[in-house]
């Protein structure tokens, strides 16, 4: 449950509510980015950023190399599937 999955911010959907569409291992869903924005990093500047996604929230910015490595490891460990499935299902249910 404490696992984070790397994802890439592809679009800001609400600057005001700090929401973005994030591609997490191929699943695109709305993610809250309130924890990673501030005056130096306003939401508009986040497109293209890699972040660690935890239960629908981006918790920290990471670099691409770290993101790729973590994704590969999670895939290898076979431990991402359940979370990705849950993510996909919730996106279908709620959109």
């Amino acid at each position, binding site marked *: *449950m*404490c*696992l*984070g999955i790397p994802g890439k911010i592809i679009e800001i959907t609400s600057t005001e*509510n700090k929401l973005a569409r994030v591609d997490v291992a191929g699943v695109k869903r*709305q993610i*809250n980015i*309130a*924890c*990673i*924005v*501030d005056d130096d990093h306003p939401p508009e500047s986040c497109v293209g950023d890699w972040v*660690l996604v*935890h*239960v*629908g*929230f981006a*918790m*920290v910015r*990471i*670099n691409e190399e*770290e993101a790729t*490595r*973590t994704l*590969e*490891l999670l895939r*290898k*460990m076979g*431990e991402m599937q*359940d*979370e990705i499935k*849950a*993510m996909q*299902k*919730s996106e279908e*249910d*709620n959109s």
Partner: protein
Amino acid sequence: MKYVDEFRDPEQARKWLEKISALAKLAQAGKDRPLHIMEVCGGHTHTIFRYGIKQMLPQEIELVHGPGCPVCVLPMGRVDDCVALAEHPEVILTTFGDAMRVPGSQKSLHQAKAEGADVRMVYSPTDALSIARKHPDKEVVFFALGFETTMPSTALTVLQAEEEGIGNFSLFCNHITIIPTIKAILDSPDLQLDGFLGPGHVSMIIGQHPYSFIAKQYKKPLVISGFEPLDILQSIWMILSQLKEHRHEIENQYGRIVQSEGNHNALSAIEKVFEVREFFEWRGLGSIEHSGVRVREGYARYDAERKFSIPNLKIADPKSCQCGEVLRGTLKPKDCKVFGTTCKPETPLGALMVSTEGACAAYYSYGQIDSNQIIS
């Protein structure tokens, strides 16, 4: 061999293992028992078992599994309370998958659902809020649990609900905090620990400073560690170095994720919505001062404990369960009387068998690895 080869970089893993072996005896010098290093985080427990790290380590080092799996430390009474909430006809109870199968004294949420209660698994607390938007005639309760890693997400969801004026959403709050928990472990008389692997993702939120007392007052090293097997090996080596040099400091192996000051936005959301509880009851560990949070008065309309009357009974674990001893690190999972017989991942008797982060489930799935297979 097989398991080292599964590492991202087996060569690196071997190197760290050699460095660990070279240090282990020196670090343990003067002790008539192995060094006890506790991993506080359930994610670490999982990696340790998954990769057979336990068996790779020299005999001078023993890993003790801490209480860092939030699902596993939930007392039975709280599960019963949650089931009672779910059985209210106007309630839709939402929760993460893991929590569905934790046994209560009568039933789990999963069983309550089978009997007709409206229990829905969600991926995120924001999904629970979406359900509330769709069903204004129902009360949507989110079963909030987890350490500081998940706390910001529930706090921000409450703030979002307030912003939108959604009134039919509330939390059944079971969030717990890491620092009082570690303190309780350090104060327990039957446990001798020499150092800690600190949780990576909790530290990403709270930063490095809250741990200082462990070094200053208790004179133990703590190394904040990532969850990859190589991270864990490196962190163990860092702890050994400290022990050998008689240092006790808070170090950060996971600098690529953890900033020493933590995440400001996340902390302020937590601070806004939650306040510390006097006491919170833990499975196996009893009542720990200041170890849980509840929803602040100002957000009372988002607090299921204020909106509903909750039975709030203390229920003792079944006699045959030894989860408490395993959680305190004084008993190995396989030595529990019901391990692998009446208590299995498919039919868990205790909570440590439910989540893959629980010591018993991890031990059951990966613990039987023969150590000869591992070290070539």
